[in-house]
């Protein structure tokens, strides 16, 4: 198949990206409208708050995972991390440990998880896909072992506020999400470290030979991701008031879908935090809307899988058409 090279200037690439985001926005608006018309409870305040809170905890993890993916790696263990964090938190609260201390401990655990993942990927050199699929199982298994498969109530004023508190009527998780998202955006689009991440993703060898400590960059991004997942786990625990080893199961699909939808490629080097935001919005609206329509959970799964494949297909097809 003969091909003509298209000299691609960055300008052209930007145009391409913008149109993708445009598609996503259109999809988002269409979905919101559809659900608003078909389900009365969709645009109730209660639902909005609930959706936003859910969206927030997922979004926090997704924003930071985007960084890992731009660096050229991936972390499938976030779901297991969330489950483990949730169980550890509930476990500790059950034994009367101070809420603030619990938060601290969980964040440190998230850090440790990130360190382990980072070590496997950067030091041992395992492919991050498989490595994190493996560690996902370890964290999940530990969660089940800790609680012996049962759920533990997690009620504590500090923890409760994490997920269900409000600041001027805005749910606290949303505030956290805005902060985390804002920081990620700032870091990736405007900071020196963010530039190093992009360089690492585009060409790790060139980055290394330019004096960038590629291993450190990847390692640190895994640590951030582990901590973000832990934070997400805490928020989820608060939202549900319970620590369950099943928390976060299947979330990998949703989050990675959102990130890929948003334009971040699996190979690294390409991607924008803003794109992840749009991806999260779309998937959250989808999930929420379908739930409002009383759609059975597994159908929702079907829908998510289908949306992922469909949207990524359009990206691929559009890219092909240009040549």
């Amino acid at each position: 198949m003969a091909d003509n090279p298209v000299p691609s200037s960055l300008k052209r690439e930007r145009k391409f990206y913008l149109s993708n985001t445009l598609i996503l926005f259109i999809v988002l608006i269409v979905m919101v409208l559809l659900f608003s018309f078909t389900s009365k409870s969709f645009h109730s305040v209660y639902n909005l708050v609930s959706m936003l809170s859910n969206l927030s905890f997922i979004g926090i993890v997704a924003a930071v995972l985007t960084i890992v993916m731009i660096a050229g790696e991936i972390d499938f263990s976030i779901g297991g991390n969330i489950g483990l964090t949730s169980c550890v938190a509930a476990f500790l609260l059950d034994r009367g440990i101070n809420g603030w201390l619990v938060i601290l401990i969980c964040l440190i655990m998230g850090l440790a998880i990130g360190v382990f993942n980072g070590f496997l990927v950067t030091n041992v050199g395992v492919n991050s896909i498989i490595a994190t699929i493996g560690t996902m199982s370890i964290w999940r298994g530990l969660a089940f072992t800790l609680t012996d498969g049962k759920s533990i109530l997690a009620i504590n004023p500090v923890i409760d506020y994490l997920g269900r508190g409000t600041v001027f009527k805005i749910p606290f998780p949303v505030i956290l999400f805005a902060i985390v998202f804002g920081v990620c955006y700032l870091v990736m689009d405007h900071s020196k470290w963010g530039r190093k991440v992009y360089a690492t993703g585009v060409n790790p060898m060139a980055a290394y030979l330019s004096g960038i400590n590629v291993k450190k960059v990847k390692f640190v991004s895994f640590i951030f991701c582990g901590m973000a997942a832990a934070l997400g786990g805490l928020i989820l625990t608060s939202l549900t008031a319970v620590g369950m080893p099943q928390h976060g199961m299947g979330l990998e699909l949703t989050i990675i879908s959102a990130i890929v939808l948003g334009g971040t490629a699996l190979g690294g080097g390409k991607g924008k935090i803003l794109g992840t935001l749009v991806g999260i919005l779309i998937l959250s609206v989808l999930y929420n809307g379908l739930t409002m329509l009383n759609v059975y959970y597994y159908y929702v799964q079907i829908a998510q899988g289908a949306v992922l494949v469909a949207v990524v297909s359009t990206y691929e097809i559009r890219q092909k058409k240009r040549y």
Partner: protein
Amino acid sequence: MAKNDGLILKMENITKTFPGVVALDNVSIDLRKGEVLGILGENGAGKSTLIKILAGNYIKDSGSTYIDGVKKEFKSPAEAMASGIRVIYQELNTLDNLTVAENIFVGEQITTTPFKIINWKEINSKAKELLQHLGANLDPNIIMEDLTISDKQVVEITKAISKKATILVMDEPTAALSEGETQSLFKLIRRLKESGVSVIYISHRLKEIFEITDRVTVLRDGKKIATVDTLRTDNDELITMMVGRNIKDMYPKRELPIGEVIMEVNNLVAEGVKDVSFNLKKGEILGIFGLLGSGRTHLVRTLFGVNSVKKGEIKVNGKKITIRHPKQAKDNNIGLVPLDRKADGLALFLGVKENITLANIEDLGNGFLIKKQVEREKARNWISNLNIKTPGIDTVVSSVSGGNQQKVVLARWLESGSKIIILNEPTRGIDVGTKIEIYRIMRDLCEDGSSIIMVSSELPEVLSIADRILVMSKGRITSEFSRKEANEEELLQSACI
């Protein structure tokens, strides 16, 4: 309309444009049966476009191609291959996980009926036969991964021949070969000629053009300048045709003051480096000449912190330093323009400005954040200083030409404040015009107080540019010459010890 004039290939009035640039403008070339035709031209002259059209990767805008008198239109590489055209690219394309025999017969494994079972015995014996026909004694059962580049090339050529190639195109085949391997390759090419294969030989190395080709076609700026008999032309004429200006002496002469010792390497032992000692003086260009396997690149990697030092020391400005990571090299103001700029030197999806500031991200602002304005200024500064030809500072660096890409990498180290710059084959794969620019830049840098270590396997380059030349062989330095004393024979001799 069949034309029977003894030409196995005739490309007439080929024109090809891309958005914004005319790559080929009415270019015509012809290839006689059993001859070796050299194609010379700077980067951007159109050589690779022409070959891609011949090989079926691109479709020409206008013109005609005749294979053995028959007009052909290639719409895909498969069609070109079916007509007997095979291209051996500089970056070899092999299946490293399979054996030699499998590579030769990939996709067409010999089978026996019934049931189309693969006949390994026959595949291996046929492969051995083909290899020996070309004078190679490789074991067909070896896995490609374990072979040297030179051997892999032989396998690729064997593969091409086994598929009945009548026109073999070789694109810079000796780029990664040692002198001895190059001679082996030439022997092979002569054998191919004898068996009636016609060869198109693309190379920047004039010496090789004179050694192996029968005729030479020179391209410049998308146009064909001339086709001459190799025996009836000389260096100056060819260079003049390539650059369009008379360059009596390609390499600028320089006599500049050389200062104190700025870097000392004492009894360095590392992987591939047996026991190396030398020093670098301020303001000088130190050339390191050696053939493949001499340890030059190992030395470079050790100096830059990629490989670890086992014994010995490196001193900069009199102080002993330890370099275990490129970052430390950078902090000691050492920079590296690596051998393979695409794979190791550039972040291809990022823009020119990002690549220029890659080694000095710290200076792009005061705190955590990058001041975009600062970055833009720095980029513009270096683009103008080094005369980097690019549509804009944000242009994706993969769409900039090879020579300019090299300048971008160089700019990166200048931006980072390197005083000692190591260049590994700085002008490989770069057109003559940009080569000269780079030499001039090197000289200017030395005037300003930088010092350069230039690793090169191009004798003319080393002889003309370097103030001092070290010759390496098998991990050691075998001799040292000043520019005045050095000559080709002694350098080569020293490199072959």
